[in-house]
């Protein structure tokens, strides 16, 4: 069997997804046998960023115009394009920047902004169509394999669509939101982590981002009833989800209330 051509592209992020991918814990031989790493900067010198690619993985938030341009070219050259990690999937941590006026935030970091060319941070799918989302920060291992095997076998990838709550129930965790009064984001957060934070005795902070069509405003109301301040609720919904519709709705509700 011919190996499939794989490209891995990094935009604005911690490069943790590349690092994670470079060390695919339990399946190194299988991955190496199935894919030709045409371009992955963290692993290889002299890679060629030109397509065609059977699969392109894109990590990082889009924060500079050249990235959007390059991304569009990669999309055109790739049969399947997956966003990997919360930065690429939902904007992630870098999208917090958009919660305040751009100049104000940038001025706090640089005195001279003449050589800084940042644009408003967005997820990858603000610019190109995405074939699948490998969610999480860091991404879920299972979802990474799912993306790779779906391309290998030519089927549609199957990613979890339910909330972290379901994972807690499956694990038999006591609910930290109800029993311990912790402001847990689990009810609106996409599964994939295995309910990690509630299992570690703390509230979920939504590093996997919102579950599709999650009811953010309802959870924000619950937080308010628990006595959590307006600003604290807004911070909960903007740590990882500042660039998402689901969490923006919650923030708007809190402002209007």
């Amino acid at each position, binding site marked *: 069997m011919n190996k499939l051509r794989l490209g891995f592209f990094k935009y604005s992020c911690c490069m943790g997804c590349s690092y*994670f991918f470079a060390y695919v814990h339990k399946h190194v031989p299988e991955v190496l046998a199935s894919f030709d790493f045409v371009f992955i*900067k*963290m*692993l290889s*010198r002299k*890679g060629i960023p030109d397509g065609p690619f059977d699969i392109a993985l894109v990590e990082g938030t889009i924060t500079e115009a050249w990235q959007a341009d390059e991304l569009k070219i990669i999309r055109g050259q790739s049969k399947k394009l997956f966003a990997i990690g919360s930065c690429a999937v939902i904007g992630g941590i870098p999208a917090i920047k958009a919660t305040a006026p751009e100049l104000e935030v940038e001025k706090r*970091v640089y005195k001279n902004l003449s050589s800084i060319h940042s644009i408003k941070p967005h997820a990858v799918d603000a610019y190109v169509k995405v074939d699948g989302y490998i969610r999480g920060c860091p991404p879920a291992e299972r979802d990474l394999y799912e993306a790779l095997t779906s391309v290998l076998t030519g089927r549609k990838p199957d990613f979890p669509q339910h909330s972290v709550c379901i994972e807690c129930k499956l694990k038999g965790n006591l609910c930290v939101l109800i029993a311990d009064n912790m402001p847990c984001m689990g009810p609106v957060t996409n599964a994939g982590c295995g309910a*990690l934070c509630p299992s*570690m005795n703390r509230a979920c902070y939504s*590093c996997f981002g919102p579950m599709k069509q999650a009811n953010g405003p309802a959870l924000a109301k619950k937080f308010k009833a628990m006595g959590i301040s307006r600003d604290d609720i807004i911070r909960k919904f903007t740590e990882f989800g500042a660039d998402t519709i689901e969490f923006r709705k919650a923030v708007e509700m809190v402002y209007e209330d």
Partner: protein
Amino acid sequence: MKIDINYIARVEGESSVKLEIEGGKLKELRLNIWEPPRFFEGFLVGRKFDEVPDIVARICGICPVSHMTTAIRAMENAFGFKPSTEVKKIRKILALSQILSSHLAHLYIFALPDFFKLNSVVEMLPRYEKEIKRFLRLKDAANSITSLFGGRALHPVSMVVGGFTKLPSKADTEKAAKELESLHEDALETLKMASELKCPALENDAEFVALTGKGEYAINGGIISSTKGLNIKEHEYPSYFIEDEVPYSNAKRTVIKDRGSLMAGALARINLGFDNLLPDAKKASEDIGFKGGGNPFLNNLAQAVEIVHAFQECAILLRGLTLKEYFADFKVREGVGSALTEAPRGMLYHYYEIDRSGIITKANIVTPTAHNFLNLEESLKKLVTENIDKPEDELILMCEMLVRAYDPCFSCSVH
């Protein structure tokens, strides 16, 4: 002749080296760190103290534990809170496990292929299967320690101001200690392998800077010491270190006031803390005739020595845990706090101003690569000058190898 090395692979983040040679002489050389800024210090303002560790973890995919620990220690200093001895021990275990992961990845995946004249670790198979298998065994063990305490190896979740949210059982920590002890031979093999790599000669009279401790290989805090006599406390950092913007780079550059460039990282730690290494690591290092030095390429070897040390110290610390007093309550108060730790790639500084409700009003972060920036540029200049007659391909590879030897994190440096 102009050379633009704009594809520096096998490092974390984006950079390029631009140089110009005229009449057989190096005219100009710039390290252009074009990694896009994410403005962490900008958007941390307005966030609450308890979100900060989870946010700053995302500065770096390789050293999240360092950013979390440094931020937590800085905020604890601002609140006037002193963590328990147990908490300090666990923080050191986590830091050592991450130093192991980072060094192992750097040595085997990033640095090694150059010495075999290969482009990537993938090309090392099947010929170097033994080395790859050893790497996977060691890396697995290091990762499992981070996730044993942190919940996961990347961006752990249990670390908070005050201590930890949950700890593993005694049975689990004993099992982990045993696993680490069983890897001592593999760690020694790694050192042997690193000692056999032929590095170009390159002198570097930089000031090596690292945290040091009394009778301890310092990681989370200590005295800021240097090979040229610096000996100051953590909170005195801003009076001695100056951070400046560089017109051609998104990363800022840090120097020692009135003195100039510095080098931080494993080699600096070995140069300043060799006597505090555990006896086995010290002996293994002496057996191969290494006690530190100035050549930045020796950083690879220094990392290998630290691998031997860290596996052992981690096991010792694990054996000594009581697993009690892992969290204590604290009072949020208005204040200013800073802290330093030894991240895998060197000294890392975090500074926060916090208002009375725990909201960040100012943040400053200086990473190891910002500390090394100027020295790396100076070393590159020296390397090119001394090898100016070499063919272009060879010169380019040498420059890349030198950049990689510093084990830079450009994502961190810009943040």
